[in-house]
């Protein structure tokens, strides 16, 4: 028993919205769980454990896992809170299934940024209290520094960042994302600087969201023609601590480490096998940083963007869902939104943003908006193996 394949049996979500005022987080989570169990065609009693991605300060409550079991039918079962993004909880769930500890588990993450009055203060509290907090009233300034380093290092311009925004908002307008619209790069360029060189439209707006995903072992997935395989997943930590002194500015070093590991698992380059990429780009430059990490070349990433090779219907559609720029920043649930969108792509259920013949996808997420650590997943359908 153990160390076999791990599969996505079902997904459920409350689609991203600028404000879900009619539902509290328990109701949101309940509805997403009901959907996920129905999608997996299982009874909640068959689910053996729950992995949640939550953070105390975001929840506004200490030891936040206390409040998760009831509404997802997980009372008196295995539970583990992973303090990070949804994909980090997925990483844990994947290992638990692969080890043989459990056959079927659920992964949950929710976010209600519309109810957080002082999010900048919350995020600022993740930084070193002596050196950084006193000088950074808004921690997104770190993203501005990082964007500046990226532009300087690559010779790219803010127009490139605006092209990312134009593409993702266009995709979101087709996928139904809450911030989708037809907006040209030139119009994006007219929005004011907020964290120079980042302009207002280079920054993802917030959205409320919840995702519940059911994972199962090879045995649990047997007979399902819709199960999507998690062929490999890896998480890599940051290049620096809370003080950011040693941070590798302008690049996502973690992508290279994660990609190497995923490539080793797959005995090949996952990027070449992928039909699409979903990534949590909280800021426009992060999409290019992530792609540069995947391709091992910033120049190639910029070339693909400028030539439209990341658009729907092109060589490597990047964020066909619209990403975080088009769907919103759902904090630690953001990776869940990207993951659910990728699963739907591989099942051929992505509607107007469907990538034709999609059989394999890369999904990536950052630990938080301003961290330089993250998680990389490679998904594929049965006939992609």
């Amino acid at each position, binding site marked *: 028993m153990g160390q076999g394949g791990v599969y996505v049996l079902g997904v459920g979500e409350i689609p991203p919205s600028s404000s879900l005022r009619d539902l509290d987080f328990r109701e949101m989570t309940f509805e997403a769980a009901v959907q996920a169990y129905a999608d997996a065609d299982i009874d909640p009693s068959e689910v053996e454990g729950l992995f949640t991605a939550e953070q105390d300060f975001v929840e506004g409550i*200490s030891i936040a*896992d206390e409040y998760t*079991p009831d509404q997802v039918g997980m009372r*008196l079962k295995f*539970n583990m809170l*992973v303090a*990070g993004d949804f994909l980090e909880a997925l990483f844990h769930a994947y290992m638990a299934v692969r080890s043989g500890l459990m056959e079927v588990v659920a992964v949950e993450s929710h976010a209600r940024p519309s109810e957080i009055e002082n999010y900048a203060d919350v995020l600022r509290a*993740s930084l070193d209290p002596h050196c950084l907090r006193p000088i950074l009233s808004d921690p997104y300034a770190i993203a501005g520094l990082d964007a500046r380093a990226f532009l300087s290092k690559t010779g790219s311009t803010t127009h490139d960042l605006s092209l990312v925004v134009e593409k993702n908002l266009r995709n979101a307008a087709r996928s139904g994302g809450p911030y989708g619209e037809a907006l040209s790069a030139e119009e994006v360029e007219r929005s004011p600087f907020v964290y120079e060189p980042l302009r207002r439209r280079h920054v993802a707006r917030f959205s409320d969201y919840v995702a519940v995903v059911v994972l199962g072992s090879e045995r649990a997935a047997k007979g399902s023609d819709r199960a999507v395989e998690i062929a490999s997943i*890896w998480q890599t930590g*940051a290049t620096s601590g809370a003080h950011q002194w040693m941070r590798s500015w302008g690049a996502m070093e973690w992508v290279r480490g994660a990609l190497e590991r995923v490539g080793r698992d797959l005995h090949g380059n996952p990027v070449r096998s992928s039909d699409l990429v979903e990534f949590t780009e909280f800021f426009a430059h992060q999409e290019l940083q992530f792609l540069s990490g995947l391709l091992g070349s910033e120049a190639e990433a910029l070339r693909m963007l400028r030539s439209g090779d990341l658009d729907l219907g092109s060589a490597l559609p990047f964020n066909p869902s619209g990403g975080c720029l088009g769907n919103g920043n759902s904090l630690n649930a953001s990776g869940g939104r990207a993951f659910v969108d990728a699963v739907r792509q591989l099942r051929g259920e992505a509607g107007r943003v469907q990538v034709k013949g999609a059989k394999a996808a890369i999904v990536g997420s950052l630990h938080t908006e301003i961290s330089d650590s993250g998680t990389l997943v490679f998904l594929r359908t049965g006939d992609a193996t």
Partner: protein
Amino acid sequence: MRRVAIVGAGMTDFRSMLPHSSPEMIREAVRRCLDDVGSLSIRYVDGVLCASAPDAFDGYHDKVSIANEAACAIGKPVTRVFVGGGSGVAAAVSGWYHVASGLFDTLLVVAWEKMSPPYPHAQKLFQTIFEPVVEQPLGPNLIWIFALEMRRYMEAHNLSKELIAEVAVKNKANALDHPHAQLGARITVEDVLKSEVMVWPVNRLDISPTSDGAVAVLLASENVARKLTDTPVWIDGVATCLDSQYWTNRDLAFPYYVYLAAQKAYRMAGITNPLKEVDVWEPYDPFTYKELHHLDGLLGKPGLAPRLLKEGQLHRDGDHPASPSGGLLGVGNPIAAAGLMKVAELYWQLSERAGKRQVPNAYVGVAQAWGDLMQVGTVVVCRR
């Protein structure tokens, strides 16, 4: 299943107002742990798993960022788990599946807590674990709800305060032999009964202290473990179980969630009669009655643990030694680190390196922790 072993452990002193920051505590625990494995270089560690809860103690949001550099985890996989007071043993559970999955050959598990800085007292921060609409406005604290549970437990099994106080006497005496203990002492039952009443029936000496401290253990796959040490201690059973948030809706006399977690862990480890097959117990003892309450859950027999205590069987030289380390009551209670300290104690006991604390002929041990709103049980079964 791929077997997973503990191959090394290290910890800081547990103290109130320890003059070290959280990163310094983590670094010291990690260094001692790696030194314990023949000065192993951190380069040979595949990843780091952290546990600490809640965030408020350190005043950090997302406090994994405190640990990644202190644990020398830059560029390695590093994540953090927590389930309140159950976090330390939950980290061992999570560490187990990291290695058992085949993704990791070595994993450093680090737990820490810095409880001293909150002003005026860490207890104030515990108010933020309660349900915010109905419970928080009542201004509850943990001692109130544990007093309710202790009272119910005493009522269910007709227990005297004198008997329960013997847990404090035993554990604080055991802690005198622990080099990192905060509150090792020779006290009497009378001392416990005469100590200040916090919330009846809980007296001050029924309660573990607030503490600062960190613990690290190194886990390894079977092949690697046999290269690193001659005395690996195998983690053969793991489980967690979380009950409903509605703690007011269950009978507080028996920790059913601990019972269920234990049963799963025993099944995995092939244990059918824990009373006969387990040689050493490290149940979670933040309060005197909790050691008995949790042992009842681990043994699956309500009311059995107080009888064993009465017969002297829970003492280090008894048939069923419980908390030979000194437990939270004696060694200290830096929340997540306290649970991992119990796992480290099993490692030292089962590899026969527990010094004066050594339980003779210890082959199988169980460590357990508990937390959230009196709702989670986390259990590991270890074997020599």
